[in-house]
Structure formats: C-alpha cells, structure tokens
C-alpha cells in the first residue's frame, strides 16, 4: 500500500502498460476467436479439433510458453501479447460457439421464415443473442490474462509484473504487494466492466420477466 502512495506515477504507468498488454491480447483473441466460434457452431465436425487444439494450448505452462516463443518473437511485448492471446482463445472460442448453439431453434426458424439472409440472421439475431456468452468468455479471458500478464515481465513484457519481480529481486515485499493488489483491482474492474457492457448491448436482459 505504502509503495503505491509513495510512487503513484510509477504505479500508474505500469498499470496502463499492463492494461495495454492484456487488452491488445484480448482484442486479437476476440478478432480470431469470435469468427472461429461462429465457424465451429456452423461446421460441426470442426468443433472437436478446434476446441481440442485450443484446449491443449491452454494447458501449456505460461513460463514455458514464453520461452518457446522467444526464438520467434524475441524478448518484449510481442511475445507477451502473443502468448496471452493464445491463452484467451479457448474461452472466447468455446463461449462463442456455446452462445451460437444456445440460440433457440424456433427463433432461427422464425428469422429464416421471415426472409433474413444468412448474414442478416447472424447480425440481427444470432450474435446479439450470443452476446451474454461471448462476453462471459471475454471476461474470463481478461481476468486470467491480467494474472498471467504479470509473468510477462520476466521476458520483458513490462506491466505490473515488473513491480512484483523487482520486489522479489530486492526482497521488498511492499512492491510485491503493490503489484499484486493492482492486479486484483484490475481484475475486479474488468469483471464488473464487461458485465455492464453486456447489459448495455442487451437491454432486454435488464428487465425481469413478469410471469413464467
């Protein structure tokens, strides 16, 4: 705590760096993961291999993953973002596919019967209905990414991990606590923010059913 109060500028700078790291990774993962999720909800035989591959990637220990990537992407932010994006992929792909599969058949049938084309159905009906699932996936990935992102400091990724690893090196528990605390605050804020955002995009989720 004391460290944060004594070095507000430094902590703020690292927090911003951390957020940039995580959000770049999430953005990339979403840009790949959401279309991939839609694809595997349509082309069923692809679902198993895609989910298995992203599942296996998810289980690779983060430190090992960073090490594997270094020869290709070097030391620094690129490696950190790549690894975080890969970790985020599973949650986003799986949740997008689940959300698409949860769209009631009767609603899809109505959309077809009323003359919506494939793309209109996706844009007007299926994606909006899958939003709570997709956002749950992004939220999960972000919270995990904030934690894993701290390890990225080891390979020069920057962010709040720097505080923690500096603290370990200099045996300064204040810095460790400061870094960890900021990570927790970020995770909680992300959790809250994405829940709110999902409700903003799906105003109908805010109203209660008046009857069964």
């Amino acid at each position, binding site marked *: 705590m004391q460290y944060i109060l004594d070095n507000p500028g430094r902590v703020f700078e690292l927090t911003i760096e951390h957020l940039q790291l995580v959000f770049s990774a999430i953005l990339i993962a979403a840009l790949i993961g959401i279309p991939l999720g839609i694809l595997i909800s349509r082309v069923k035989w692809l679902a198993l291999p895609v989910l298995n591959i992203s599942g296996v990637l998810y289980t690779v220990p983060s430190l090992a993953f960073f090490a594997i990537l270094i020869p290709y992407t070097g030391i620094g932010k690129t490696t950190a973002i790549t690894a975080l994006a890969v970790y985020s992929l599973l949650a986003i792909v799986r949740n997008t596919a689940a959300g698409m599969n949860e769209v009631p058949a009767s609603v899809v049938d109505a959309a077809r019967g009323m*003359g919506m084309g494939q793309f209109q159905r996706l844009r*007007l009906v299926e994606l909006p209905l899958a939003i709570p699932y997709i956002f749950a996936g992004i939220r999960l990935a972000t919270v995990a990414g904030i934690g894993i992102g701290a390890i990225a400091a080891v390979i020069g990724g920057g962010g709040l991990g720097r505080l923690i690893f500096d603290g370990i090196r200099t045996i300064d528990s204040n810095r460790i606590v400061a870094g960890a605390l900021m990570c927790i605050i970020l995770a909680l804020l992300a959790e809250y923010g994405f829940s709110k955002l999902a409700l903003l995009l799906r105003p109908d989720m805010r109203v209660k*059913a008046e009857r069964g």
Partner: protein
Amino acid sequence: MITLEHVTKTFRMEGHAINAVDDVSFTVEEGELAVLIGPSGSGKTTTMRMINRLEEPTSGKISVNGQDVMSMNVVNLRRHIGYVIQQGGLFPHFTVAENVATVPRLLGWSKKKRRERAEELLALVGLDPAIFANRYPRQLSGGQQQRVGVARALAADAPIILMDEPFGAVDPITRTQLQRWLRQVQQDVKKTIVFVTHDINEAFLLGDRIILMRDGHIEQNGTPADLLRSPETEFVKEFIGDEFALQALEHTYIAELAKPVPSRVPDDTLVIPAGMSIPEASREITQADTTGHSGFLVTDEEGKPEGYVTYEDLASAIGEGISSGAESSDEVIPELLESEDA
C-alpha cells in the same frame, strides 16, 4: 392463391427414403383460411413449410399467385409471406415494436414508418401500443406473445400467412380466446392463410377449408361441413368422431342448435332426436348418406319435427368446442384481455 400440384417431399433416413409428403395437390383460394390437420407425422407441417421454401419439394410444383416458388428469390418470397410459429418465435432481444416491424426493417422502411406500422398493428391485435410497444417478449404472457407473433406476420401486409400450430403452447382458455380473436381479425384482414394444427376443434372453428392428412397424403379436402356430413374414408370418420375431440360437447344437445323448420325440406332428410348430444348426432351423421342435404330435422319425444339444424351450424358448434358455454365472443374477449394484463 396457393396451388400445390403433385408435391412430394422425400427425406432420407438411415438409407431409407421416406415420403413425408406424398403426391399432395390442393388449392387455397384468396382470402381463404385452409387448415392442414392430421396426426403427428402426417406431413402437414412439411407441406406448409414448402410453401415458403423452408423445405424444398423433391418433386411437384408449388405456386403462389400463379408463380412457381422455386423460380422466385427465396428471401424475397419469404418477406412477402407472413410466418407465425408456436410460441410466436419472437426475438427476445427486440422490443415488441421492433419484433412487429422486423420484415418492414428488412424491406428498408424508414424508422418512423416502421414505428407507426408497429403501433397500428399492436392496436389491431388488441395490445395497447402505449403499454406494450417498448416491452420485451419476456415481459408478456404466452397469449400476448402469440398476438405479437400474429401482428409481426401482418406487418408488411403480406397477402399470405403461414401459421404453424400458432396456439399450440398456450393454456386451453387462452387458446380459445386466441382462436376466436383470430377469427375476428381474419374477418377484417381477409388474408390467405394456411394454418397447421392437430386440434380438430380448432380446425372446425377456424377453417373455411380443412385438409386432413395422414402418412403424407390427403385423406380429405373440404369444408368443415363436408367433412362432417360426408367423410370420404374410415380415417376421416374416426378422426372427426374422435371421442376426445368431441367429449367437451357431450352435454350440449342438438335441441340447442335447432332453428325453425324451413318451408321445404326434402322427404329423405335425416331425422335426429332433440335429446341427442352433439357427439352422438355427429356419429349418426357420419354413418348416414346426406348428399344433397343442407341439414337435418330435429324431432321431439313423439317424433314430431321440432326444428332444423344446418350442417354448417353443427360444424361451427363443434368448432366452438370447449367454449360452447360462453355467451358471445364479443362480450368475453375484452373481459379476459383485462385479466391477462393484470
């Protein structure tokens, strides 16, 4: 007008070819409400779904106003045919007004025009736009959702509407209300409607024409009175004479339907005692030859003619089914509507 000519739909299941619809031909005239009815697996829903090409026929020809549907742009075809399904199939993330205005939106109407149209239709289906327009489907009762579903099908003023068991998922009392209500709306809008159901009472109440199907083919195609007085096959007899379908009428007697005897009644007119219940009389009639007759005589205990019942009246009484106790639909509906909103 909708015409089906020798339409067959074959599904492949585990290597077997099954004709879900087998050489079906019929015509639905403009402004007519045709009911497709039959037990499950009879092909009635598949038949309906081929009209807007949600299923495509394996062979045969379907035309809408003289145009072969297979030659039309499928998206365009569907936008000009209203579609109502069970539980309305409403979009849960659209408000009621947005749901109603879906097809106008697809057709590129302006926002203002869409809104006006939605409000107009909500009023037509008996839902106050001021209260309902901005609600979401989950805030409505099942019956209200069905009304919105019907309003949505009417939104782009499509001349043809397909209804797939639209009232199948609501409780019996609400269903009766909705059926009576649809009959009134149909009197105003006069659409060409194809209505799928498995409920014989519903078919008798709503249908100008009933097409009874079994195992993919048509058993009989005719008016409700036709089916009642001259069933063409044993299956039709059974289906109509079904105790279950008619049991609600067991305590309604023929005498209640009797009107004064017309001045000229043919000598071979069927005679039914006044004390017979409607199901009993229906069984009598399906057994008798009633060709060329418009109705039957009702006699008192001593066998003297007391009144006359037309087959049309009998058919609509059967259609009224469980609601036969209600005095008049005009009086009942507003009252029930209020309780639904409460």
